[in-house]
């Protein structure tokens, strides 16, 4: 067989019916992730047609988007933002009961953001096809899985048939050479990449991230990178599994155990692009040139080093973006006054992200007038963080320590910023109004977000980290 990329190996293994000129491939889905927002209409469709959910054993469902991050009151009532949100959550509970899906719901010790708990449980594994009615499904590509977001109609297709109709996408290799400088992390890297290739730089493609700087990343960091593939327009981004991947997955509840584990790892080792495999496009990025990076506009491609001058608007919509953000061309973002800091989301709410923020915050106070929210990605992250005392670092600094959920990443559960407020956020989208109508979002790493909370202005975390080291 001719040389193949990692993507092609995973794709080929899941083709049920090959594509032809007239018809797309029927592609098998190993794992279907479900949450309350994009599933109700799909369950209704099944019901209307009298169809079963084909493989409930291949569904992982949780509550994350519309869920409050404050605990239930003394009356046991959860503080939903409105009745619709509450009804949406109840509906997923009812749908899961009706269709035989095990829901990681309110009573589960595993509940959390869908893209955080899949890997945590070991449900996400190398070589799988994984889909979800959510564009950040690309996160799971960090394990060498082909993972991408789908719409609700397709959610229904997967529920009924465990398959999707798909045309084979193109491939884009992003080689990241060199080493990331001290104090610069995966979030800075992916913002830098999107700033370089643009928000549509990956459209129609599956990205494979490769090179020394990628291999050096931890699993959490790889997830941060793959998570934002969609912000470059690519439905999926993946990284070849290696010893880092296997060490991280080993022993997780849904990962293979014992002899099956050894056998799986042996097969997983073959999941890498052949040396002479061809990509449709290739891009090279120098990790050594990446600095703490933030966004200055209203899409993730408007990203620059925080100490670099904001570029002048080249057209009407860039002008609109700068106006909306109140960003000034020629001035760096560093130093911009901050109202709210959000640490959370499937991009940056894992334990390592919280540690990164806590390392900056420890023994310090958030600046007067700044509101800071720390929202762990899952119940497991919350437990682990509390075991380490991170929650005390946050609360002592003056931040709010919340229950797991998407929270201010999408601002549909009531956690949101006010019009005009500037939010330094570890999430993935800085679209107009994403964090509340009129709210201005600056995307950043957990370390930058924490440093900015302390300074009350967008600040370089290295200043704080150096002090700790000294």
């Amino acid at each position, binding site marked *: 067989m001719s040389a193949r990329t990692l993507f092609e190996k995973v794709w080929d293994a899941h083709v*049920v*019916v090959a594509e032809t*000129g007239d*018809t*797309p491939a*029927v592609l*098998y889905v190993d794992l279907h992730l479900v949450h309350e*927002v994009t599933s*109700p*209409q799909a369950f*209704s469709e099944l019901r209307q047609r009298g169809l079963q959910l084909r493989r409930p054993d291949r569904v992982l469902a949780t509550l994350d988007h519309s869920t409050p991050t404050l605990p239930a009151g003394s009356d046991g009532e959860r503080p939903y933002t*409105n009745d*619709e949100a509450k*009804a949406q959550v109840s509906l997923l509970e009812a749908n899961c009961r009706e269709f035989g899906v095990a829901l990681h719901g309110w009573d589960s010790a595993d509940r959390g953001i869908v893209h955080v708990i899949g890997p945590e449980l070991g449900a996400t*594994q190398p*070589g799988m096809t994984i889909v979800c*009615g*959510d*564009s950040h499904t690309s996160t799971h590509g960090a394990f060498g899985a082909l993972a991408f*977001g*789908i*719409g*609700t*109609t*397709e959610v*229904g297709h997967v529920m*009924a*048939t*465990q*398959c999707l*109709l798909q045309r084979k*996408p193109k491939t884009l290799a992003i080689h990241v050479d060199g080493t990331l400088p001290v104090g610069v992390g995966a979030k800075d890297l992916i913002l830098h990449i999107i700033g370089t290739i643009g*928000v*549509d730089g990956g*459209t129609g493609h599956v990205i494979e991230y490769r090179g020394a700087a990628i291999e050096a990343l931890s699993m959490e960091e790889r997830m941060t990178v793959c998570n934002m593939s*969609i912000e470059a*327009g690519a*439905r999926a981004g993946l990284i070849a599994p290696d010893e880092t991947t296997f060490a991280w997955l080993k022993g997780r509840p849904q990962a*293979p155990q014992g*002899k*099956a584990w*050894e*056998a*799986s790892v*042996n*097969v997983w080792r073959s999941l890498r692009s052949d040396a002479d495999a061809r990509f449709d496009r290739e891009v090279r990025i120098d990790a050594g040139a990446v600095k703490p990076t933030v966004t200055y506009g209203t*899409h993730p*491609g408007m990203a620059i080093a925080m100490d670099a001058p904001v570029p002048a608007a080249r057209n*009407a*919509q860039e002008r*609109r973006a700068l106006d909306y953000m109140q960003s000034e061309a020629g001035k760096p973002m560093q130093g911009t006054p901050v109202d709210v800091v959000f640490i959370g989301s499937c991009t940056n709410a894992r334990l390592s992200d919280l540690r990164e923020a806590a390392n900056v915050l420890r023994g310090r106070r958030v600046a007067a007038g700044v509101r800071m929210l720390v929202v762990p990605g899952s119940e497991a992250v919350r437990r682990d963080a509390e075991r380490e005392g991170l929650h005390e670092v946050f609360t002592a600094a003056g931040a709010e320590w919340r229950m797991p959920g998407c929270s201010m990443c*999408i*601002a*549909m559960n009531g956690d949101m910023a006010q*019009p005009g407020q500037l939010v330094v956020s570890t999430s993935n*989208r800085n*679209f*107009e*109004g994403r964090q509340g*109508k009129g709210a201005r979002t600056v995307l950043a790493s957990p370390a930058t977000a924490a440093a900015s909370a302390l300074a009350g202005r967008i600040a370089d975390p290295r200043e704080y980290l150096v002090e700790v080291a000294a």
Partner: protein
Amino acid sequence: MKPVTRIHSRTAVLADENIDTDRIIPARFLTTTTRDGLGKLCFHDWRYLADGCDNPDFPLNQPQASGCAILVAGRNFGCGSSREHAPWALLDFGIQAVLCSEIADIFRNNALKNGLLAIMVSAAEHQWLLEHPGIELSIDVRGQFIELPDGGRIVFQLEPFARHCLLNGVDQLGYLLQHETAIAQYEQQPDHFTQEQAA
């Protein structure tokens, strides 16, 4: 899905690039559990002022945009989330086709599955369309061309299966279900990469 063969309308233009799905329908409205009635929320935060009145600066609030079923949008329309609420909202709002030089993958997929024509044209043709709001166009799905008022044509590509489904109102889930035997056979094999037992 109802067959979609031809759309005839004047165009309305939203020239901004990168109009994301949060702008098409803000996330706080996604608590709905149905597909219906989202038109009134379409472009909500752009279309209405804080007091709920129409924003006079929003291009689709201009009198000449009323009744237009064809939207010419800036490059990379529909980027962002996978929410199918975006095409549902556009269709309910009265938009039946989006013309653009580049349309985000997931949005385009979702749109076509709902009979919203998401059509990509060349950069030069796109530029021309952006500069001529309000012209009458006829989109012919079978012939894969857009007819201009002067009789000129813009030819476009459409994925053959999507085109077939549009023209014949094919139910894609029904089509997938016809592959039951192949799917069942595929499921007989062990997983390719994860091993259930020692090899």
